[in-house]
């Protein structure tokens, strides 16, 4: 199991790099947005909003377990990627996050 995840995972940041309530974009072939809720939990989703072109890692807002796109106020559940209000109707792809010590990895 370790082998398969290691192959597809990439280093995102250290836990100190991302404050609670903040998001960032993890560069790579497929851009991934890494989010850290106010409670400190990490989640990863597709970086581009499913409604219209916008980087959710660059700019988005977290509220409880929801992610809000600042372009048109689409909301998504961080755990499932499902949209929770209009205008989005398509789920965001979600990715697993692995925290090892201070290092945070996303599994693409």
């Amino acid at each position, binding site marked *: 199991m370790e082998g398969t995840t290691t192959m597809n995972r990439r280093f995102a940041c250290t836990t100190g790099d991302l404050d609670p309530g903040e998001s960032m974009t993890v560069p790579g072939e497929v851009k991934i947005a890494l989010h850290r809720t106010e409670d400190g939990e990490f989640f990863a989703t597709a970086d581009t909003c499913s409604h219209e072109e916008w980087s959710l890692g660059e*700019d*988005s*807002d977290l*509220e409880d377990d929801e992610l*809000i796109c*600042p*372009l*048109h*106020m689409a*909301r998504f559940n961080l755990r499932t990627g*499902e*949209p*929770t*209000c*209009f*205008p989005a*109707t398509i789920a965001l792809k979600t990715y697993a996050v692995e925290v090892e010590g201070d290092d945070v990895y996303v599994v693409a």
Partner: protein
Amino acid sequence: MSSPDPTLDTANDTRKVLVVGASVAGVRTVQALRSAGFTGVITVLGAERHFPYDKPPISKEMLSSESTGEPVPLLTEDDVAKLDVELRLGAAAVRLDPAAKVVTTEDGEAHAYDVLVIATGASARNLPSGEGLAGVHTLRNAEDAVQLRSELAPGRKAVVVGAGFIGAEFAAAARAWDVDVTVVEAQPIPLAHILGDRIGAELGGLHELHGATLMTGVTTKRLVGETRVEAVELSDGRTLPADIVVVGIGAEPATAWLKGSGLPVSNGIDCEASLEVTGFPDVYAAGDVARPLHFLYGEPVRIEHWTNANDHAALVASSILGTPVPRPALPYVWSDQYGHRIQIIGLPSRGELVLTRGSAATGNLVAAYAGPDGVLVGALVLGNPRMLMKCRKAVMKSVHHADFERDLPAAS
């Protein structure tokens, strides 16, 4: 959208839902009903012949020389099939009989319903002398945008009546075509009635920065021309030659067809926070036409924003089906002008300007507004979505502006 609640029997709900209006509020209502598991008959009546299309591009992408100028569809033919909805286009509603539960369309056909959703939106105001004069345009629907775009060409002269968002977005789009643009605004400062003098002046300044002429404190006296507009006569005696006139002086809720129905219509349709029309069970209003009690402001508010139509669609579906009420959202609107994105959260008109950072000219402006008690009621940003989201949270949590300012990072 949220999953159907297994305790509610939406799948065996056989009510017939009639939605009048096939734009954002109407179409999204159908999507919300279906995603909640409702399997009853749904019919949508649309006054326009166009397949349902999205509204924001009308004054943005549809006017751009870089686009095809085609309307942006709200859904696909495949979506319509999946939604199992009877979509009647070119079917303007002309009469409502709430006792008999029947809506009559222009062609005389009677449409019976168990539940009615009124989502007829708002119609653009025109100048009295503008009706029937070629070259004079309002900008509210796809046909308006198609016609207006066909008139744009380098060197033509456009006069824009009204420096609100529609007028400003048209002016910006026309400047990109190298049209010679003059914007005429009745107020001494554009948008001052909703954003105050300082921020209104900042945004009005964008016109001059991008080669348009802005004339303020002056109104339109008369449009000159026999069959086609030739000039605009102003209240101060000046005359502006014009090939194109765009009238952007606001919109009126489309409620004329409800005359005689007994529904409570004043500035829009009065409804409860649930969007049920006051005194009329089984009749709901959504979008631009609805004037519900607002959860945050505690009084009836009618909002013509695109996001409001989306929010109302989800709310009206939950009210009809008895499913959980969606999380309330603040009023939100954006505008694209001269390459800048302006975003407004909350209702700045309910307060005074209490904080300003940056400027429109530098492409980064933040303005926050607070009520008499110092609590934030709204904010505007230009080119700063991150600050917009900070302001959104602060308005939602009724934060005092002094606390908000203290917690702001120095550089934002």
